């Protein structure tokens, strides 16, 4: 029987009522007395020296409050990078200053050159047009390999080159890996591009800065996945505002996908300018601005080699990746192609020798940072594409080749530093076989052929590392922050509960799923429990939501805090029941004395905590509120197997997805409906990357796909009816809920199966195509078919 509440129930998302009836409270919905508007004048060239900025005419325009240029931000810090990478030679990465407003030089199209604060947005835009820029254009650095050539134009004059770092991982594996490849019976090599993407959350970014002279208090409302991180980065590193004088609020946020993790110039600007003009300052991004100022994702160029012995066992894997950083280091940019990518290169397989080299490169493009999956899709795509290519070269079944090389014993220490605590890759593959009806494929292929179409089947596995992360470990790896999380469980006098959590919900459904956990623990209805998040003045602390970490890390903190509450409540109940607290049991919202019929209700105990007339005041304090911080012992390792069936139109190259199946192991599942929804959305973005989305620059550094006229987002009719399953469950061994994380799986697991399927279809049509770079648009597929 499916449960109707608590852990495992598909409780409907309570937050959807306000979203679907238009009463959500997004940052742009917030307007305050005396508010001004800022319009950012953005660079329309990729690389230039700024010789002069003449703002005199603009300042005289109607409604202008103040115009800011880079010089105004000289006294404050640049936007910091949260992760320092140490290169193969023990040197720290090159880390250029990332200014709030360009000063002296423009380094990408869309960079802020000046900011006009005015009474109205129209007045600000009008005045911006009157600003006179004196620029000397410079050659743009766009192609990563060209950027590393001797004599290449430098994005940052003060750096030695455009190389941010040259990272080797694990450096001690290099010689053994090289030797294993040299001596292998078969080596499959694949060169590929992991295409650059724009996240495109439905809600664009917004910032509203306020300053109160009365108490020297700054407030920033912003579209963030992690308001405490913004408070830390902006307060401590950019503007020098102590935490107790800075409140950051991220109210309803309409999608993040990673791109709202980072601290952005516009946030710092609105906070800074609000004090400078002594008025609130608001900015709402246009969609056009979002394309050229939201951090982009992916953009790796890779060569991967997979070596096999004569029995088709994987013996070594070697990769060489160029990772585009863009013009500046965004908040977590440096960690994505390294620790979130290199550590996953073992995939689901027991390959004994692995060596990963990553060269991170500065170019005159928008900064690149984490996007749903962040590093793990790049790893998965390489591994699962090269395995498919190897199977084809060797003439063996690609599924059998995977199975033969699966990790089967846990815990498993990979050659790339991480230890998988648990998993069962055979189980998800077996589930996938059943769901995807591989047995019926031949008949479906024949039917497609009859209709003039080529049908292909593609399969892949994936593993990811979620629940980022043990703080002491990431500290050793260069993280400049801890990655624990926190929760406060506040029980009110009448028994209802507010839970203040550091995780931020912007589509994940925390307001529904987190109360299910508390409801299960205490035995009171879910509607007696509310989640409070997104405001640094209300919640204890929080590192936010990304990396599929909310439940595994913040949920664990919430469980720990709830356990403390229950322990205290048992002491109160024991007093009321005149029993020993060791004998008190809590079930279905009733405290009872074991082995007796004596009991007291949850609400009576909570009332006693706040009206302590009959209360053990000598032993415990009144009130019922507890906080816990939780630092995970390890990453969690969700894994699964995906299958995609496509049809290719031989005349046009158009690909249509006919079937898609996903078998995931997320450990224990709190709300199966929400988990399915997360997988659905992830697959949509994975299919988007595989078939449609392409953030393209021309050689001058102009963004070619700068609007929806040229950037293709997946739409409902691009997607099939998915089959998703998460019944294979190997619970995480080291967090209290046994949960792993599900937010990114779909985006990580789907691109390889789509591409594998298209290659399979082309091969069935007699086209010997080994690889096509994503997105597999009709023109690219047709082009590959022409040889």
């Amino acid at each position, binding site marked *: 029987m499916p449960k109707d509440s608590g852990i495992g129930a598909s409780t409907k998302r309570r937050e959807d009522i306000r979203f679907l009836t238009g009463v959500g409270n997004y940052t742009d919905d917030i307007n305050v007395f005396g508010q001004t508007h800022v319009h950012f004048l953005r660079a329309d060239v990729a690389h230039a020296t700024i010789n002069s900025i003449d703002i005199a005419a603009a300042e005289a325009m109607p409604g202008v409050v103040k115009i800011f240029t880079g010089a105004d931000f000289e006294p404050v810090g640049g936007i910091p990078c949260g992760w320092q990478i140490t290169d193969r030679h023990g040197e720290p990465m090159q880390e250029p200053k990332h200014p709030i407003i360009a000063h002296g030089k423009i380094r990408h199209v869309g960079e802020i050159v000046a900011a006009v604060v005015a009474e109205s947005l*129209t007045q600000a*835009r009008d005045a911006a047009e009157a600003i006179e820029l004196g620029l000397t254009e410079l050659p743009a650095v766009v192609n990563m390999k060209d950027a590393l050539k001797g004599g290449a134009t430098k994005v940052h004059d003060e750096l030695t080159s455009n190389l941010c770092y040259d990272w080797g991982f694990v450096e001690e594996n290099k010689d053994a890996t090289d030797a294993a490849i040299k001596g292998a019976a078969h080596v499959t090599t694949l060169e590929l591009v992991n295409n650059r993407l724009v996240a495109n959350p439905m809600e664009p970014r917004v910032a509203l800065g306020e300053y109160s002279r009365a108490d020297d208090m700054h407030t920033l409302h912003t579209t963030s996945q992690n308001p405490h991180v913004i408070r830390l980065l902006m307060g401590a590193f950019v503007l020098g505002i102590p935490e107790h004088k800075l409140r950051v609020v991220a109210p309803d946020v309409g999608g993040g996908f990673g791109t709202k993790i980072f601290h952005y110039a516009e946030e710092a600007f609105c906070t800074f300018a609000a004090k400078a003009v002594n008025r609130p300052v608001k900015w709402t991004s246009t969609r*056009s601005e979002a394309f050229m100022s939201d951090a982009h994702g992916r953009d790796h160029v890779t060569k991967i080699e997979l070596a096999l012995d004569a029995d088709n066992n994987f013996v070594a894997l070697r990769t060489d990746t160029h990772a585009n950083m863009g013009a500046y280091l965004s908040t977590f940019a440096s960690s994505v192609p390294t620790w979130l990518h290199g550590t996953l290169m073992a995939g689901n397989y027991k390959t004994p020798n692995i060596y990963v080299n990553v060269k991170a490169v500065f170019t005159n493009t928008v900064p690149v940072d984490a996007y749903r999956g962040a590093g793990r899709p790049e790893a998965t795509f390489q591994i699962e594409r090269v395995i498919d290519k190897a199977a084809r070269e060797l003439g063996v079944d690609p599924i059998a080749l995977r199975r033969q090389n699966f990790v089967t014993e846990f815990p498993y220490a990979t050659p790339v530093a991480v230890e998988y605590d648990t998993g069962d890759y055979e189980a998800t593959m077996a589930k996938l076989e059943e769901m995807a009806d591989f047995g019926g494929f031949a008949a479906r292929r024949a039917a497609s052929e009859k209709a003039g179409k080529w049908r292909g089947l593609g399969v892949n596995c994936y593993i990811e590392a979620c629940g980022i992360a043990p703080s002491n470990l990431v500290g050793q790896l260069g993280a400049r922050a801890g990655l624990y999380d926190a929760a406060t469980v506040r029980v009110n006098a009448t028994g209802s509960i507010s839970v203040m959590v550091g995780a931020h919900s912007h589509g994940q459904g925390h307001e529904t799923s987190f109360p299910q956990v508390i409801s299960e623990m205490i035995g009171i209805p879910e509607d007696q429990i509310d989640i409070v998040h997104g405001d640094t003045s209300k919640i204890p602390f929080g590192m936010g939501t990304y990396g599929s970490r909310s439940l595994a890390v913040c949920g664990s903190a919430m469980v720990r805090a709830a356990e403390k509450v229950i322990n205290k409540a048992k002491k109160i109940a024991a007093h009321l029941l005149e029993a020993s607290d060791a004998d008190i049991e809590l079930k279905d919202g009733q405290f009872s004395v074991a082995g007796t019929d004596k009991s007291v209700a949850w609400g009576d105990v909570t009332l006693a905590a706040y009206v302590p007339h009959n209360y053990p005041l000598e032993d415990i304090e009144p009130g019922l509120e507890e906080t816990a911080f939780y630092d995970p012992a390890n990453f969690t390792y969700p894994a699964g197997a995906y299958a995609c069936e496509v049809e290719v139109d031989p*005349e*046009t190259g*158009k690909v249509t997805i006919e079937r898609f199946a996903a078998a995931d192991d997320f450990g224990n599942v709190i709300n199966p409906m929400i988990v399915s929804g997360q997988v659905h959305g992830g697959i949509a973005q994975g299919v988007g990357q595989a*078939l*449609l989305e*392409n953030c*393209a620059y021309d050689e001058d550094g102009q963004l*070619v*796909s700068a609007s*929806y*006229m*040229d*950037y*293709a*987002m997946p739409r409902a009719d691009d997607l099939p009816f998915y089959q998703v399953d998460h019944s294979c469950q190997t619970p995480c061994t080291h967090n209290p809920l046994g949960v792993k994380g599900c937010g990114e799986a779909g985006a990580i697991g789907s691109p390889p199966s789509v591409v594998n399927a298209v290659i399979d279809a082309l091969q069935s049509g007699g086209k010997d195509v080994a690889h096509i770079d994503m997105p597999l*648009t*009709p*023109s690219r597929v*047709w*082009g590959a078919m022409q040889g």
Partner: protein
Amino acid sequence: MYAFEIEKPSTIADAVLALSGEDTQALGGGQTLIPTLKQRLAAPEVLVSLSGVSEMVGICRNDAGEMCIGGATTHAAVAAGAGAFPALAALASHIGDPAVRNRGTIGGSLANNDPSACYPAAALGAGATIKTNTRDIAADDYFEGMFSTALDEGEIVTEVRFPVPEVANYQKFVQPASRFALVGVFVAKFADGVRIAVTGASEEGVFRWTEAEAALSADFSAEALSDLTVPADGMIADLHGSPAYRAHLVKVMTGRAVGAAT
């Protein structure tokens, strides 16, 4: 968007008068113009909205059997009301999305002459007559290249008259992002021959594929195209397709339109 005045005449005569002023711009359904204004890429002083000109709205058949569609008639209205010319109704039903179809107008589309728009292919393919406030212009004389037409300053497309073919079909291969035509081919078979118009493909905008017209006039079957090739010279090159790909698609879509013509 810059500030502008808006006038909303109710007759063609008043609209022509309003457009004769300084720095005016006719506004049809606004599906291209309004986004352009929002981007501040145009700055007319006065917009003259044609949506209130009732004599420019509607669909009827004239004595010559032509389907006459008022210039301010929306795509949705054509989709619903041009059943006697099924290929035209189907074309209109696949322009943009429902919001676009309920605002955008045939006159606005033809006056704009976007090189990837659908209506130019129908007008040229069917050999329509573009009727304005001053004259009748044959489709063959009307389209003058990308975003360029025979219209004079202030001239309004008041009506489009389509000869109704025996059979016709429009095949659109969509550009994946915008869903405009990457290549769209309109094939119309009349008693005296076949006309074929291609949109989306050429740097010169909509054009007739006369070689295929001759072949199909002799033998109206996809096989009749087998020996023909479309030169890639002058085809559009962009993120979504090379000139060679577009040239290839012209032939494929023409063949499919012949096969599907009703």
